[in-house]
C-alpha cells in the first residue's frame, strides 16, 4: 500500500484498518511508540494478555501489563491484535540473489573452493525486491549466507563459501541494515557423493564409492591444511613486527575461526556427513553450527552431547530416501526437541522466505510444541548465531524488531498489521501489493 497519514482508513483484503502513520522504509520516525491493549508474546516469558510495549530510540524500552507510556510516544491501539518479536530467517541469500535463474543477478557463490575472505554484506543489494516482500511476512532479520549458487542444487559450490552476514530488513544502505557483518564462516561440508548430476552433459554421473571417498578425503585434508596454516598465521600475526611478515587475506579471514571466535556454519544434510563434520570440529576445537540437517535425527545423540546446534531446512521437504516415512522431515523438529538438540528453522531461500512461519507451523502439526516452533524462528536463530543479546525476543534493551498481527504469525492466513524494524514503524508495502492494486483497478477490458 502507499503511505497513509495517521488515522486514515484503508482497505487491506476486505478489512478496514485504522492506520497509524506508516512510514516508508526509512523515513523520519517518532522517537517513541507505545502499542497498547495487545496480547504480547515476548517469547522470553509468558504471554501478557492486555499489555503495553514501549519502543524508544530503536530499542524496546518497556513491556508489561502496567507500563507507563512516555508523553511523546505515538500510541497504537493494539486491541484485538497480537505482538511478537519479528521472525528471524537463519539461512537465506537475501540481497545476494534476485532472480535465481539469471546469473547476472546472483552474487551468492564465488568460484574456487576456498573463499574465507568473501563477505555477504559486500554484495547485499539493499533495494532488492525480496526485502520488502519478506518483511511484509513478518520477517525482520535474516542471515545472508554465501557459498552456493542461485539454484541450491547447482553443484557448483566451494568448500569455504565465505562469511555470512546478519541484517535487519530496512535501510537505505547496507551499513544501516547490518546487525553483524561476520556471523559465521560458511563451510559446505565435502560429501561422499557417488551420484551427481552433470550439467555439462545433462546426465547423471556415477562414480565408484572408493573414488568418491578419495575426493572427500582430499577436500577434508585441504581444509585441514588451510586451517593449520591459519593457526600458524594467527601466531605470526601476534608477532607481526618482524620484517618478513606478509599479510594473507584468506588466512587472516580464518584467524577468528581457528581461535574459536567465529563459528563455522557447516552446510550438510546426511547423517554420515553431519557426524563427520561434528567430529572434525570437535577434534579441531572449532565452533560449529550445522545448516541443512535433513538427517539430523540420525545423529541426534551426538548433536546433543556435543551441544551442536542445527539450522534445519524447511520441514516442508520430501524425505531424502524413498523408504523414509512420508512425514520424516515434518516430524524431525519434534524428535530433535525431545532429544534435547538445539535447533532453528530456516527458509534456505529468498522467494520462499515468507514460508518460514508456515514451515514452523507444520512442525507443530507433526508434534513440536507450539512455543518451541515460535522460538525456532525467533529466539533460537538469534541465540545460535550469537545475536541473542540483540534480537529474537521482546526484552527491554533489545533492538525493537516487532510485529503486530491479527493472529498467530505462523499461520498462513495471518496478516502483519504493523511492522517495526530497529524501532521504526516500517511499511509493509511491496512490489506484490503494488501490482495487486494496479491490476485490481484495471478498467474492464473491452469485449
Amino acid at each position, binding site marked *: 500500500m502507499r503511505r497513509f497519514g495517521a488515522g486514515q482508513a484503508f482497505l487491506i*483484503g476486505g478489512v478496514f484498518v485504522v492506520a497509524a502513520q506508516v512510514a516508508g522504509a526509512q523515513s523520519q520516525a517518532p522517537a517513541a511508540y507505545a502499542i497498547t491493549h495487545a496480547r504480547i508474546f515476548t517469547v522470553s516469558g509468558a504471554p501478557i494478555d492486555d499489555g503495553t510495549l514501549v519502543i524508544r530510540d530503536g530499542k524496546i524500552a518497556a513491556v508489561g501489563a502496567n507500563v507507563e507510556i512516555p508523553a511523546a510516544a505515538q500510541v497504537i491501539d493494539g486491541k484485538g491484535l497480537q505482538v511478537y518479536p519479528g521472525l528471524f530467517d537463519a539461512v537465506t541469500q537475501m540481497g545476494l540473489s534476485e532472480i535465481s*535463474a539469471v546469473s547476472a543477478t546472483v552474487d551468492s557463490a564465488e568460484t574456487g573452493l576456498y573463499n574465507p575472505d568473501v563477505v555477504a554484506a559486500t554484495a547485499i543489494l539493499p533495494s532488492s525486491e525480496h526485502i520488502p516482500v519478506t518483511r511484509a511476512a513478518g520477517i525482520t532479520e535474516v542471515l545472508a549466507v554465501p557459498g552456493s549458487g542461485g539454484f541450491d542444487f547447482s553443484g557448483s559450490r566451494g568448500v569455504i563459501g565465505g562469511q555470512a552476514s546478519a541484517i535487519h530488513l530496512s535501510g537505505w544502505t547496507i551499513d544501516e541494515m547490518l546487525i553483524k557483518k561476520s556471523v559465521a564462516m560458511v563451510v559446505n561440508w565435502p560429501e561422499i557423493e557417488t551420484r551427481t548430476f552433470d550439467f555439462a552433459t545433462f546426465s547423471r554421473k556415477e562414480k565408484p564409492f572408493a573414488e568418491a571417498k578419495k575426493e572427500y578425503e582430499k577436500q577434508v585434508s585441504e581444509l585441514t591444511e588451510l586451517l593449520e596454516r591459519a593457526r600458524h598465521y594467527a601466531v605470526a600475526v601476534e608477532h607481526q613486527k618482524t620484517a618478513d611478515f606478509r599479510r594473507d587475506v584468506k588466512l587472516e579471514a580464518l584467524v577468528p575461526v581457528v581461535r574459536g571466535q567465529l563459528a563455522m556454519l557447516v552446510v550438510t544434510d546426511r547423517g554420515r556427513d553431519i557426524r563427520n563434520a561434528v567430529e572434525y570440529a570437535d577434534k579441531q576445537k572449532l565452533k560449529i553450527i550445522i545448516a541443512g540437517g535433513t538427517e539430523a535425527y540420525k545423529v541426534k545423540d551426538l548433536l546433543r552431547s556435543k551441544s551442536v546446534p542445527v539450522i534445519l531446512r524447511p520441514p516442508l521437504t520430501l524425505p531424502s530416501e*524413498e523408504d523414509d516415512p*512420508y512425514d520424516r522431515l515434518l516430524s524431525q523438529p519434534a524428535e530433535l526437541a525431545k532429544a534435547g538438540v538445539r535447533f532453528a528453522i530456516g527458509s534456505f531461500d529468498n522467494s520462499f522466505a515468507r514460508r518460514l512461519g508456515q514451515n514452523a507451523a507444520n512442525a507443530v502439526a507433526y508434534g513440536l510444541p507450539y512455543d518451541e516452533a515460535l522460538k525456532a524462528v525467533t529466539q533460537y536463530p538469534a541465540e545460535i548465531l550469537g545475536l541473542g543479546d540483540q534480537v529474537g525476543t521482546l526484552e527491554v534493551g533489545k533492538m525493537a524488531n516487532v510485529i503486530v498481527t491479527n493472529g498467530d504469525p505462523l499461520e498462513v492466513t495471518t496478516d502483519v498489521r504493523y511492522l517495526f524494524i530497529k524501532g521504526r514503524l516500517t511499511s509493509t508495502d511491496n512490489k506484490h*501489493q503494488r501490482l495487486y492494486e494496479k491490476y485490481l483497478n484495471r478498467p474492464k477490458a473491452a469485449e
Partner: protein
Amino acid sequence: MNRLSLVNTIVAAAALVAVGSACVAVFAANPPEAPAVLLIQNATILTVSHGTIEHGSILIKDGKIAEVGTSIKAPSGAQIVDANGQFVMPGIIDCHSHIGVDGSVNEGSISVSSIANIADVLNPEDIDIYRDLAGGVTTANVLHGSANAIGGQTVVIKLRWGQPAARLPFEGAVPGIKFALGENPKRSNFSIPGQPKRYPATRMGVEETIRGAFTEARDYKKAWEEYNKRAGAGEKNLIPPRRDLRLEPLVEVLEGKRYVHSHCYREDEILMLLRVAKEFGFKVRTFQHVLEGYKVADEIAASGAGASTFSDWWAYKVEAYEAIPYNAAIMTKRGVIVSINSDDAEEATHLNQEAAKSMKYGGMSHEEALKMVTINPALQLGIDKRVGSIDVGKDADLVIYDHDPLSAYAVVQKTLIDGRVYFDRERDVADRGTLEKEKKALLEKERKAAEKKADEKKAEEKKSGGKPEEKKPEDKPKPPKDATAAGGAL
C-alpha cells in the same frame, strides 16, 4: 522440497539424481479393501457445493456417495469411521502434477512432441503417489514437461496406490496435451553444451511453431474427412492418407476431444495463444502457472479458459518476476475459474494450505479458497460430475483432517478414493516398525551375501596359490546402498 527447482527441465534433472540415490525399494502396498458400505460419522463436512454440515455423516455405497446429512443411521454391516472433531472435504485435485511418471517428463529434443504420451509411462510404484495421497490428493493431472511449444499428451489419474498402472487413469476423463510458452520452450535458462540451439528461441518462434503445427493438423484433418467422405460414398480403390501420429492429437484438439493445458507466464504470451486458438478454432482448456494471468484476467475469462496457478512462487526466473500471490484472487474476481496446483510432488502435499493463502492475499472467502483445490480443478478437467464436491452420486473421494484444512496445522488422517481408504495415518505410523525391520533384514541379507562372495573369492585365490587375479570392477564388494538400489528394480 526446498526448492528453487522450479524450472521443469532442471526439476527433472534433479529428480534423476534423487531417484538414483533412493536406496531401498518400497513395495507398493496391496490396494485397500473396498467396503460395500461405509459410514463416516460426526464430522464437520465441507461439501464445497452446499456449505458446511456440522456433526454430519457421509454414507458411501459401492464407492459412491449415497447420502450426506446429519441423521444417517448406519446400515447393518456398514464399516464405520468415527470422525468426531475432524473435518471432511472432497479429495484434493491437483491440476498440474508430474508424479507417477517413469523417467523424464520431457521429450525435449523436438519442438512439437505431441507423439509422446505420459499415459504410456505411468509408474504406479512411484513413492510420490503415496506421499501426495498422504497430503490429501486424490486426483492429479499428470502432464508432460514444458520443454516444447507443443508438448506430449497428458493423463488424469486417481492416486490409487497399490493398483497397477492400468487402474490409475481417471475413467472417462478427457485426455489432454501440454503446450508451453515463454522461457522454457525457447530454452532461455538452459543450454546443453555441444547441442545446437533448437527452434524456437523467441516468443515469436513459439507462436509460429504452434501455428505451423496446427496448419498441418488442419490439412491432415481435411484429408481424412475427404477420404472418409469418399469412402463412405462407396468409392473404390481409394488410398487413405498416411497416418501421422504427431498430428492426430492436434486433430483431436481441433475436434474438442483433447484438452489444451498450456504452461505460460507472461501476459503477452497468454494473449498470443488465445489469438492462435481463435485462428484455428480450438479452445484453451487451462492456462497453467499463468503467473501474469492477473494482468489479462478479463481476456482469459472471456475465452472461457481456466487458470491453474501457484500460491506464492516468484522470482526464480525473469518471467516469474512479476508473479504475485494475489494472482488467484484477481483472476477469480474477474470471473476466471481458478485452481491452485503443485507442479511438484512436495508442494502437492499441502495444497490445502496453499489455497488458504488467497484468504490473506486478496481476501477470498473460506469457501472460494477451498474450491480452488476441489471443484474448480474438477471443472477445469471436465470431471466435475464425478468429483470435486461432497454430493450424492459422486465418487467417494474424500480427505479427513484433524483441523480445518485451510490451515498450516491441519494433518490428513485418511484419504479415500472410490470409498476405499488408500491412506490412513494411524495405519501408516503403526506399520513403520515392521517396515524398519524388513529393511534391516534385507540389508543384513545383502551384507552377508557380499561377505560370502568375498570369502569364496579369497578361498579361490588361496587355492590357485599365485598372485590374486586382478579384480573386475563388478567384483568389488559394493556398499550396501548400491547393492540394495539394484534390488529396487524388483
